[in-house]
């Protein structure tokens, strides 16, 4: 009988008690003895020379402890923020990688770029003094979007004369052009992947502390990956060795990618705390978050799909411009290249794929990974153009997809864009989704809407993603400057309870429960006797953190390996206690037994023996029962599935109502179905948000127009329906748990599904020119009235 707290059970979350009772411990809930407060002076201009920064009046104000400018950082030899990935252009040249000072030096390059930091006794005093810092800006022309950047109206960096960061390609352009020339149908589609702001509800916070007695620096920060921050900040920015630098990311209120990156404020509070010998706390307000958290997406693409007369895909050619913003954020260059173009085969057998990606600097906040990172953009391109092709050649969109799917017996499948898919059953999830939404009944529902004066549309999105990031050797060969393995430590205590340390980080994903379920299942201990610890570099051996749906696929695999070691050692101890050979010992449900005998010993007795080793095989084993494993994945994992959206449009107002949304996903094996469903719901909401509501707007001169929740339309409870979600299981063949990752699927799949539904409904009303996201009422209304 399966355990009710083991693998496959919807165990209620261990972390919830503290959250529902208001006892979570988020970074802003922490205060340090003698703490001071930081406020930043930020540029109101998108592009300007810093003629002078005069801090003398501010420094004389009440409560001011210190003020630092970019010049102070330069004098102290504090380096700029590093970029973690180097992309090479198609001519072999490395990307342009300008310095990214933590406080602006010489020039400011986006609205919100930090010029100085004021440290004071109270937050009010810090803010008041920040207002009094006199900055003489020499305002320069600015480029607020990629079109302006290409025009050369302004130049951000000397080393990037045309504002281009790189011009990268994957595939053979001549070959693809030749194939396209022979195609019976060529479908061309321009697409904009709108710029988004991640908007975790907890704003970023950083507290720096310095222990004069030990020389240890501590940073408390809202991060998805404390070890990555320690590595980047310690080794590259501040020159601090790991053993004197502790980074703690306690409870974190959502991340969605934007809390991966190493931010200037983290380095500044850490460095300045040692300078002023006082702890320093900085808490972003929401306006600051809009201006300084790395944004996501922001692609402009023209895609071309060639098909033969029967609808078989022959070639896909994609030209994409990607906005990097004003500086290169931590993983920015990888997002529109190796996390994007490598997914452009989608679920299909398209034999030839070519992508050319040009990345541009603009006077906007840096752009980096946001939930899905590159894969939503790839899915949007493929699934929009496939739907458009179906419409143009008059085929059912589900049939066109099914015709071109990689078949379930073709795995492992080498795509033309570098990746080798490990497993999948795409027809299975397509069929599951069609059933869930009652695809056959759509025509009747559309007719009913029409009778009521409404337009109805249905749209598919058959997505694939590369998760379980990532095999270190592979990403290293592609330009990553770090490895992407994961680490687990399993400490069995003398009484048989267990503490597990993981290098992944939970900021909503429920690792404290999911990982504990794996341990309960494997060791046969009740889940309440298992604690999962993350988020503190002083506690955790090492780790690369949580993003790219990697925690269970990589961190869970490390856990499985560590459990293998625990089990192997425990078996030897049990064998000694039972006076048998360890090869004869079986372990199940927390009991060690010898087949064919009535001998048995409980896991708890073995644990106790390991720590009270009176009767112990000392010649063979060390006392204790604690094991650690690093796991570097053999391949990415490839979650895939099919989402279908159905929308109703009121042609009088242009309002789009999401009438139904179904998701059929294949995440491999599932440890906690309840948590997985929650992850899918959240992802869908963000994807629907991108399609219907959200859009970050800068004006041409680089002023941020959507700088608050009054201007940036976040999905709210009354914008969304309930979602129908289901899963199919095709286990991952190359990791020990057979898991693939579920965190990003919704955000990857949903935008194309919703926009295919919207454009489908509009097409039925005679609008053939597709509209871009977000499909706001005004945009939809205008499209209807232009037709």
């Amino acid at each position, binding site marked *: 009988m399966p355990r009710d707290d083991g693998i496959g059970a919807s165990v*209620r979350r261990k972390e919830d008690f503290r959250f529902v009772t208001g006892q*979570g411990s988020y970074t802003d809930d922490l205060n340090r003895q003698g703490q001071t407060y930081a406020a930043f002076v930020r540029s109101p201009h998108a592009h300007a020379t810093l003629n002078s920064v005069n801090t003398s009046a501010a420094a004389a104000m009440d409560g001011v402890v210190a003020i630092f400018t970019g010049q102070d950082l330069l004098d102290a030899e504090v380096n700029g923020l590093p970029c973690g990935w180097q992309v090479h252009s198609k001519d072999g040249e490395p990307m342009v990688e300008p310095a990214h000072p933590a406080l602006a030096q010489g020039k400011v390059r986006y609205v919100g770029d930090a010029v100085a930091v004021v440290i004071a006794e109270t937050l009010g005093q810090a803010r008041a003094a920040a207002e009094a810092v006199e900055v003489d800006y020499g305002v320069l022309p600015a480029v607020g979007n990629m079109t302006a950047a290409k025009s050369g109206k302004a130049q951000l960096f000397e080393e990037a004369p045309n504002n281009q960061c790189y011009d990268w390609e994957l595939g053979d352009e001549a070959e693809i052009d030749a194939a396209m020339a022979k195609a019976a149908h060529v479908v061309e589609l321009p697409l904009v992947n709108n710029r988004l702001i991640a908007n975790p509800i*907890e704003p970023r916070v950083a507290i720096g502390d310095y222990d004069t007695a030990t020389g240890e620096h501590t940073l408390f920060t809202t991060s998805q990956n404390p070890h990555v921050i320690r590595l980047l900040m310690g080794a590259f920015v501040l020159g601090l060795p790991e053993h004197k630098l502790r980074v703690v990311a306690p409870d974190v209120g959502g991340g969605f990618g934007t809390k991966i990156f190493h931010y200037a404020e983290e380095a500044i509070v850490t460095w300045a705390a040692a300078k002023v010998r006082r702890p320093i706390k900085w808490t972003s307000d929401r306006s600051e978050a809009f201006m300084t958290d790395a944004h996501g997406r922001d692609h402009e693409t023209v895609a071309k799909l060639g098909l033969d007369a029967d609808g078989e895909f022959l070639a896909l050619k994609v030209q994409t411009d990607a906005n990097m913003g004003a500086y290169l954020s931590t993983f920015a260059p990888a997002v529109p290249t190796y996390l994007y173009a490598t997914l452009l085969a989608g679920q299909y057998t398209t034999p030839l794929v070519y992508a050319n990606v040009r990345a541009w600097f603009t006077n906007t906040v840096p752009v980096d990974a946001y939930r899905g990172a590159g894969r939503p953009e790839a899915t949007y391109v493929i699934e929009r153009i496939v739907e458009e092709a179906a419409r143009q050649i008059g085929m059912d969109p589900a049939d066109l997809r099914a015709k071109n799917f990689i078949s379930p017996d073709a795995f492992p499948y080498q795509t033309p864009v570098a990746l080798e898919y490990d497993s999948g059953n795409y027809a299975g999830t397509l069929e599951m989704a069609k059933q869930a939404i009652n695809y056959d009944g759509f025509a009747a529902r559309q007719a009913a809407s029409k009778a009521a004066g409404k337009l109805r549309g249905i749209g598919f999105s058959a997505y694939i993603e590369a998760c379980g990031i990532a095999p270190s050797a592979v990403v290293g060969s592609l330009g990553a400057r770090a490895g992407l393995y994961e680490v687990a430590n399993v400490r069995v205590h003398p009484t048989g309870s267990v503490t597990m340390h993981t290098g992944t980080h939970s900021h*909503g994903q429920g690792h404290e429960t999911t990982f504990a379920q794996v341990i309960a299942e494997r060791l046969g201990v009740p889940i309440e006797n298992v604690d999962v610890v993350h988020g503190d570099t002083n506690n955790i051996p090492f780790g690369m953190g949580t993003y790219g749906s990697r925690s269970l696929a990589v961190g869970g695999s490390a856990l499985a390996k560590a459990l293998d070691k625990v089990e192997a050692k425990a078996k030897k101890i049990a064998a000694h206690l039972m006076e048998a050979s360890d090869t004869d010992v079986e372990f199940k449900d927390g009991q060690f037994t010898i087949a064919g005998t009535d001998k048995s010993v409980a896991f708890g007795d073995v644990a106790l023996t390991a720590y009270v080793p009176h009767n112990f095989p000392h010649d063979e084993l060390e006392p204790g029962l604690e094991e650690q494993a690093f796991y570097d994945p053999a391949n990415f994992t490839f979650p895939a599935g099919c989402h279908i959206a159905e929308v109703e449009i009121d042609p009088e107002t242009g309002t789009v109502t999401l009438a139904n949304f179904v998701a059929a996903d294949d995440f491999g094996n599932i440890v906690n179905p309840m948590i997985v469903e929650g992850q899918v719901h959240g992802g869908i*909401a963000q994807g629907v948000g991108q399609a219907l509501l959200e859009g970050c707007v800068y004006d041409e001169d680089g002023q941020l127009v959507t700088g608050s929740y009054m201007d940036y339309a*976040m999905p709210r*409870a*009354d914008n969304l329906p309930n979602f129908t979600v289901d899963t199919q299981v095709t286990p991952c063949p190359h990791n020990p748990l057979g898991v693939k990752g579920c965190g990003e699927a919704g955000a990857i799949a949903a935008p194309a599904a919703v926009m295919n539904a919207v454009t489908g409904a509009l097409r039925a009303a005679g609008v053939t020119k597709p509209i871009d996201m977000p499909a706001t009422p005004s945009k939809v209304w205008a499209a209807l009235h232009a037709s």
Partner: protein
Amino acid sequence: MASVSMTINGKQVSGEVEGRTLLVEFLREHQRLTGTHVGCDTTQCGACTIHMNGEAVKSCTMLAVQADSAEVSTIEGLANGDELHPMQEAFREHHGLQCGFCTPGMIMSATALAKRNPSPSEADVRHWLEGNLCRCTGYHNIVKAVMAGARAMNA
């Protein structure tokens, strides 16, 4: 500086605050009741929702001195020791939270709804929660939790 006194979670408290001190600052920084969160500066996100004199209000949008003499309750006052309030239990049971940051505001808002409407429909809940942002859950499980929690509170 001004003196304020109020009842918070049944306990009489008083303090000296600046005139500009927000109620949420008084709760978080003066009283160290950090369960009430701050997620925005335009009264849009609802993470700071508390009850004042029985009504759900956003504590980032009022001054501490405006709560003088009021009865305030926060997320910390809901559970009875280890025994969760029915709305807290419903959020746990229905996985109505992920990162937990919006959760205190959601729960405080939801209990106020349940007092007005003992059996809210899905549409009622979605409409009522329009002033509380969640970025994690897509609201699906929050809506389920609030409907179940309201029924349990009024059972």
